[in-house]
């Protein structure tokens, strides 16, 4: 291979091998082992020989929370640039080499982290490690690539936000509910910020955050442990640790009032979005609040779906997302009205259900169903090596505990109706929430039930 990445070893002598720091059970059959390199790079390995494949994830502890006003979206734009040119790989070669070995390759940026994922046939692990190490230290940032990728990201924003009703609403909800914390801007960034980024902005971001002591490697699959440790040492061991900047994040002041907005969108049905400030993922209230979300919105047997979607037939869709973030985030509730019904009707009936869980305990049967659903969701997410690596990397990056998914599953068994009653009263305050009501801008909005027949 003419453009094979070669680690630029500058230190005298070979870097020391990673230090084993311990291990933890990951379910009944697997174990996650933790090593650290002398430069602070964390390596988590989980041997899983169910298939001859391996997933190699690189998690950086930088997300949109680390951005500044006027520079929103930089973490996400930078994630795009990581797929372009490096010192030893011309434009397009990184992806071409991965395609040649049949690898699956992607990345994601969110509020608290940036995640790069590669899954490959097990025998190809050495090349995967070399490629990931190459772009972590030798990325080339030039004006044409930065300009081109800004245009791609602007188009991604049009796709996910401008022309997507739900995407636009979610962005507006967070920007209204948060006034101080950096969670108030979207990970993809405001359009004017995306358009304003310079190559220098991207270079500064790379130098600041893409350091070994700000990253965790998660490796799951059929690998040889000695070979893995040797390769990781060779490819990353010479990288210097960086002085990471102080995290300049302000806590969000308590929301002391109801915030209400109405917007008009080109949609045929009204929508309702609610935001309640919620505890951080590591907070003792997070798990019971998530379980309460299951009781209310989890599946067709849940209370809100039963009442608003199936019985009253007011809504076509009813969903909840209890934010899973490092700092306190938002619980989002989304409802879409059926034709002829209004957002106010949805809100009135929803409020009855929310008041009910604040007034009286949920039943033990409901709790059991919610627990069973949570267990099924975890198990199905762990079928592939990529699913396991994502779960391990997420909980390691946000909580520092790679097997926390199973800890949470065990903790579910200890929760009772009183826990759900407590979090319902604390975290679903009617007078301190954010409401977004969506009106239809088309003539065929609520009230129109006539369908246009397609001509033969």
């Amino acid at each position, binding site marked *: 291979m003419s453009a094979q990445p070669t680690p630029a070893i500058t230190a005298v002598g070979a870097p020391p091998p990673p230090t084993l720091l311990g291990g933890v059970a990951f379910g009944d059959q697997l174990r996650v082992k933790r090593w650290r390199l002398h430069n602070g790079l964390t390596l988590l390995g989980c041997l899983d020989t169910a298939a001859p494949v391996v997933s190699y994830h690189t998690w950086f502890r930088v997300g949109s929370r680390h951005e500044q006003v006027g520079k929103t979206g930089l973490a996400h734009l930078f994630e795009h640039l990581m797929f372009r040119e490096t010192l030893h790989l011309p434009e*397009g070669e990184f992806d071409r080499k991965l395609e040649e070995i049949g690898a699956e390759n992607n990345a994601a940026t969110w509020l608290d982290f940036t995640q790069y994922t590669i899954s490959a046939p097990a025998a190809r692990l050495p090349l995967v490690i070399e490629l990931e190490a190459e772009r972590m230290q030798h990325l080339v940032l030039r004006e044409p690539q930065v300009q081109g*990728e800004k245009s791609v990201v602007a*188009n991604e924003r049009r796709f996910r936000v401008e022309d997507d009703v739900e995407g636009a609403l979610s962005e507006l909800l967070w920007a209204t509910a948060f006034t101080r914390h950096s969670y108030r801007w979207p990970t993809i960034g405001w359009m004017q910020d995306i358009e304003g980024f310079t190559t220098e902005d991207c270079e500064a971001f790379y130098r600041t955050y893409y350091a070994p002591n700000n990253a965790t490697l998660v490796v799951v699959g059929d690998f040889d442990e000695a070979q893995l440790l040797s390769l990781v040492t060779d490819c990353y061991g010479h990288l210097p640790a960086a002085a990471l900047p102080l995290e300049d994040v302000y806590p969000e002041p308590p929301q002391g009032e109801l915030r209400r907005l109405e917007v008009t969108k080109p949609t045929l049905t009204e929508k309702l979005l609610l935001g309640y400030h919620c505890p951080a993922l590591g907070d003792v209230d997070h798990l019971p609040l998530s379980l309460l979300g299951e009781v209310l919105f989890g599946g067709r047997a849940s209370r809100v779906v039963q009442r608003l979607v199936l019985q009253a037939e007011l809504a*076509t869709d009813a969903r909840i997302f209890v934010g899973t973030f490092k700092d306190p985030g938002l619980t989002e509730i989304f409802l879409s009205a059926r034709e002829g019904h209004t957002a106010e009707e949805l809100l009135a009936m929803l409020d009855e259900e929310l008041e009910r869980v604040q007034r009286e305990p949920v039943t033990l049967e409901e709790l059991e169903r919610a627990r069973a659903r949570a267990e099924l969701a975890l*198990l199905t997410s762990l079928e592939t090596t990529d699913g396991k690596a994502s779960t391990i990397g997420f909980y390691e990056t946000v909580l520092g505990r790679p097997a926390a998914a199973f800890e949470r599953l065990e903790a579910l068994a200890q929760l009772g109706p009183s826990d759900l009653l407590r979090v319902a009263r604390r975290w679903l305050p009617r007078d301190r929430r954010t409401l977004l009501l969506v009106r239809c801008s088309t003539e065929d909005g609520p009230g129109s039930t006539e369908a246009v027949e397609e001509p033969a």
Partner: protein
Amino acid sequence: MSQVEQVAPRVFVESSSALPLVSFSVSVPLGAAEDPDGQLGLTRLLAILLRRTAGGRTAQQLDVAVDGLGASLAVDVTQSTLSLSGSVIARNLPGVVELLADAIARPGFDEDELERAKRETLAELVESRDDDRTLAQRWFRRRLFQGHPAGRSVSGTPATLAAIDRPALLAQHARLITREQLHFAFAGALTPAQAAEIAASVSGLAPSGEARSSLPQEPPPQPGRRLVVVDKPERTQTQILIGCLGTHPHDADHLPLLVGNTVFGGTFTARMTRAIRSDRGWSYGAYSSLPSDRYRQSFSMWTFPRAEDAAPCVALELELLERWVAEGISQQELELAQRFLVESHAFSVDTASKRVGLELEQQLHQLPPRYYQSYTERIEAVTLSEVNAAIARRITPEDLLVTVVGTNDRLGPELRRAVARLAEAEVIPYTRD
């Protein structure tokens, strides 16, 4: 790595102790193509009612039971298949088997539930107009497969749904859900003997009878270049699908065309992504695809540039397509595509449920014997001349459908100019059913 076993006719299983989880599916190789003309949506409603009235229970009782077992149970209807499938925490498998048996053999087909499902379907049809990509796919299929069952709506329309009643459901159930048509697939924490026993107990309850599929293999050709603009207000962006009829898995040139498609738009470094995303930054994604089914499927190119770039993007796509057809691909491109397809097949078979799923698809789509088992060897055997001949034979730049979801006032005239030799143009309001 364990292997898929066939433990009885149309019963496939792969045991795996990796997780305390069992995935399952019961399917028939008959789908929405079996809907009578005036009752489009009938087969989908049949599937929904199987799930919601199993054993004469109410939908709520069933939802409570499924969730309480730590299970999922979903229905899926395509033009060629109907399936009930899901997963369950292994210790609760017996409970799900009982529900499955009741769904297949003892549905109550409650009248109220039927009416509720019809109202729900109507609401979903309205809701789906919020999604521009769905709109593009819907109208692309309808126009490309005009005159063929694949061009009809699986969900139905207000008029056809209104024409569906309980006797129609009962008749469709008797025709489609028969012992001879049932196909079972299981993966996970169960033994082959358990799987065989479950399949026997469920199919033993189903009536006997053989239904013949009414899905013709060949959709009628649609000559000329046609433009369909799905007109939706306030669009800053467009959704563009361009394509023609593709291949059938039984065609000798299906795999050669698949390799050619990989070079053209099947990966992140393919020609389409390079030209549209990497070189011009016009769209977040630009891909082409060549799906397969029991009938001749489509070849399509998909991208979504901003409104200002839509017309030049369509012109560029047509230019790329014409060059691909005229010049074919190079030996170097062929080799890279072959390596990609062969090596990445590992991720189509990396779990027991995926391996069983491929076996089931092989049966339901009536693919040639050992289709997936021999897939990588056949990909490796494809030659450059076979690929280029397949592209030239199957891709028809002069008989092409261009579907664009966007704001017509802003885009219509430019789009017409962008499609050289345009034979026909149509503007469809996005609110049309």
